[in-house]
C-alpha cells in the first residue's frame, strides 16, 4: 500500500479508537463490505454486535465501509442466494455530478440536497404516505445524500416494486394523452394532479400573449379541459421535466432497485474525502464541508501534486495552491486533500 493511504489509515484508526462506529439497525442480519484499493475489495462479512464491528475498524481501519440495505438470515453466506434475504430498507441515492473547478463545491451538493428535499416533500410524504420520522437522510461522505425509508411496510417490497417506484418518480410511461383528453383536474392525485397543477400554475403566472383570456382558460383547466394544449408536446414536456425527480445515472437508481447492493455505512469515514458519512437531522442547515469534517486543527505539512483552487473547509478559506509547493495546513484539510489525491504527506 502506498504511504499516503497508509497515513490516512493511521489517522482513520485513531478516529475509530476514539469515536467507534454505530451499528446499523439489525446488525446481525446485515452484510458488510470493506475496501482500500477499491470501494469494496471484500464483502460477505457479518458481525453480531457493535463492539465486534468497532474492533474490526480499529484493527483494520478500512478506507471504505459499506453495509447491505437488505437483512439476511445468513449475511455471511455465499453465493448470494444462500444468504436468504428476509427484507430490505428502501433507499434513494442523490449524487452531485460536479464539473466545477472546486474541491468544495457547495452549489452542486446543494442541488443534491434540493432534490432530496423535493423527493420527501412532493412524493414520499403526500403520495406514498410515509411518516417523516421513518425517513432518514445521510450525507454519503462524498458527493451526495442517501435517503432511507425505514418501516416495516416497505421492507418487503420486491425488486419489481422498487423499480416501479423509481419509474414513478421519473414519470416513466406516463399516459399524457389521457390527461389531455380530460383525465385530470386540480383535485386529481398522483401524477395526474401534479401535472394539472403545474400546467394551471404555469398559465396563471404567465404573461404570454396567447393566454389573453386567462380567467376563462384557467376556469376550463380547473375542470380538466385542456383543449388549448392538445398537441402541445413541448409544453407538456416542459411541465413534466420540472416535476420529475432526477435520480441521475442508472447506477444511482440501482441503489433503490437492487436490494443486494451495499451502501456507505453511516458513522464511518470516506476514503475519498476523509469526511464522515453521517445522519443529517436538519437538511436545510447541513453543510458537509463544515458538519462532516471530523479531524483537527494542528498544522501539518503536505506537498501538492496538483494545482488546487481556493476552497472552504470548516468555514476556513484555504488556497489556492500550486502543484509542487509544500505548505502547512490544518490536519483536517491535509487529510481531505490527500484523500482527494491532490497532495501527499511531506
Amino acid at each position: 500500500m502506498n504511504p499516503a493511504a497508509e497515513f490516512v489509515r493511521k489517522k482513520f484508526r485513531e478516529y475509530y479508537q476514539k469515536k467507534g462506529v454505530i451499528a446499523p439497525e439489525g446488525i446481525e442480519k446485515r452484510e458488510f463490505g470493506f475496501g482500500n484499493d477499491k470501494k469494496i475489495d471484500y464483502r460477505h462479512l457479518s458481525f453480531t454486535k457493535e463492539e465486534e464491528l468497532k474492533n474490526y475498524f480499529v484493527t483494520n481501519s478500512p478506507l471504505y465501509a459499506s453495509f447491505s440495505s437488505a437483512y439476511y438470515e445468513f449475511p455471511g453466506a455465499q453465493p448470494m442466494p444462500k444468504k436468504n434475504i428476509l427484507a430490505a430498507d428502501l433507499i434513494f441515492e442523490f449524487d452531485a455530478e460536479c464539473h466545477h473547478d472546486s474541491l468544495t463545491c457547495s452549489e452542486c451538493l446543494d442541488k443534491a440536497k434540493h432534490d432530496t428535499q423535493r423527493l420527501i416533500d412532493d412524493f414520499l410524504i403526500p403520495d406514498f404516505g410515509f411518516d417523516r420520522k421513518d425517513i432518514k437522510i445521510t450525507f454519503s461522505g462524498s458527493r451526495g445524500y442517501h435517503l432511507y425509508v425505514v418501516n416495516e411496510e416497505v421492507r418487503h417490497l420486491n425488486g419489481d416494486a422498487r423499480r416501479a417506484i423509481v419509474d414513478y418518480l421519473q414519470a416513466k410511461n406516463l399516459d399524457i394523452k389521457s390527461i389531455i383528453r380530460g383525465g385530470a383536474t386540480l383535485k386529481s392525485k398522483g401524477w395526474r394532479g401534479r401535472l394539472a397543477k403545474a400546467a394551471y400554475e404555469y398559465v396563471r403566472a404567465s404573461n404570454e400573449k396567447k393566454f389573453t383570456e386567462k380567467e376563462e382558460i384557467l376556469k376550463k383547466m380547473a375542470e380538466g379541459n385542456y383543449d388549448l394544449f392538445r398537441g402541445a408536446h413541448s409544453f407538456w414536456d416542459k411541465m413534466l421535466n420540472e416535476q420529475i425527480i432526477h435520480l441521475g445515472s442508472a447506477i444511482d437508481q440501482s441503489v433503490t432497485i437492487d436490494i443486494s447492493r451495499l451502501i456507505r455505512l453511516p458513522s464511518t469515514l470516506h476514503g475519498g474525502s476523509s469526511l464522515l458519512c453521517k445522519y443529517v437531522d436538519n437538511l436545510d442547515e447541513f453543510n458537509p464541508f463544515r458538519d462532516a469534517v471530523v479531524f483537527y486543527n494542528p498544522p501539518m505539512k503536505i506537498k501538492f501534486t496538483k494545482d488546487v483552487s481556493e476552497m472552504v473547509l470548516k468555514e476556513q478559506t484555504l488556497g489556492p495552491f500550486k502543484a509542487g509547493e509544500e505548505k502547512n495546513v490544518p490536519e483536517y484539510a491535509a487529510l481531505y486533500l490527500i484523500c482527494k489525491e491532490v497532495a501527499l504527506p511531506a
Partner: protein
Amino acid sequence: MALEDLRFCAKYPFTKEAREYLDFLKINLDNLDDATIEYGAKRITESLGDFSKYAREKFEQIRTSKEPYLMNELISYPVSKILTALTEDRSLKKKFAKAEAQKVYYFLQLENEDSLYNIAKQFFHPQKEKDWFLIPFQEYLNNMPEEKEYALVNLEIEDGRIRLDKEKLAKLVSQYLYQSIVTAKIDKRDIKNKMFLYFVDEIKKDRRYAVPEDLGKVEFEAFPPCMRKIYHELQSEEKVSHMPRFVFSTFLASIKMPIEEAVSLFKNQSNFNEKKTRYYLEHSYGLKSNKTKYSVPTCSKMESYGVCCRDNTCRWNHPMTYYAKTKKARK
C-alpha cells in the same frame, strides 16, 4: 354445503372458503386417488394450449355443472399448483398461472362490488370510498400487472393508497393468483404421494425414446428386471405397494397384454379384488372416459420412484426399449 357455495369454491379455489371446505372434507393430498391427480395434470396441459376462449368456457361449465364437476374443479387446483411447482419449469409455471389468472379475472368482473370486495379482502387491505377501492401501495406494487395502464404513474395515489376501480381491483386479485402460482416452491422430498412425481413427468414428458407400435405376442422372458421383479412379487401373497403396481400396469398396457390376462396376474395378492383391479387396469389401458393412456416411466424416473433394479442386461434408458430390443434379439 349448498351447491352455490361449492360453485363459489370451484370458481375461486384459491380463497379461504375453498381451503376451509377442503379441510372440512378432510382431503389430504397424501392419499388422493390417481384420477384426481390426473385431473390436476389435465388442468395444466389444457392451459398450455390456446386459452383465449378458456375463461368463458370454464365459466359456463361451472355455472351449469353439478357437484362432481365442481368438486373436481376445486380439488384439482391445489393439485395442479403442486404439480407445476414440482416441474421447476418457469415457463410452464407462467403459462399455467396466466391461464388461471385470466380465468379468475373474467369471473371476478362479473361479480358485484360486494363479492369482489370480500374476495379482495382475503389478500389485500382494501378500503371502499365512494366508487373507488383504496389499496395500500406496497400491496399493489408487489402484485402490479405489467400493462402500461396499471403503471403506478397512470393511477391516482395519495397518502400511500392507490385508487382502483372495480375492474382494476379484479385484475389485481387475479395478478395475486398469478404470482402465487409462479412463486410456489415445493421440495420433492416433501411429497409423500409419489404419483405426483409420475404426473409431473407426464407433463414434462420427453418422447425421445421410440418403441414400435405393435410388439406382437407378450413374452415374459423379455421383461426388464424391474418388471420381472414386480411380476414375481405379485405372485406371492405379500402385499405389493401402489407405485410398483402402477408402473407395472402401465407396462402391461404398453406391451398390450390382454386385459383379462393382466387382471389374473394380480390374483395371488391377499387383498385381491377383481372389480377394483379391472377398473384400475382399464385406466392404465386408456379404456376409461378420458382415454388417456399412461406411459411407462423412464429408467431414471423408475429409479427415483424406488422401483428400479438395474442389472448388467440393462443397456437402455427405458423399460419399453429394453423389452422391445430384447424381444427382437430373441427371435
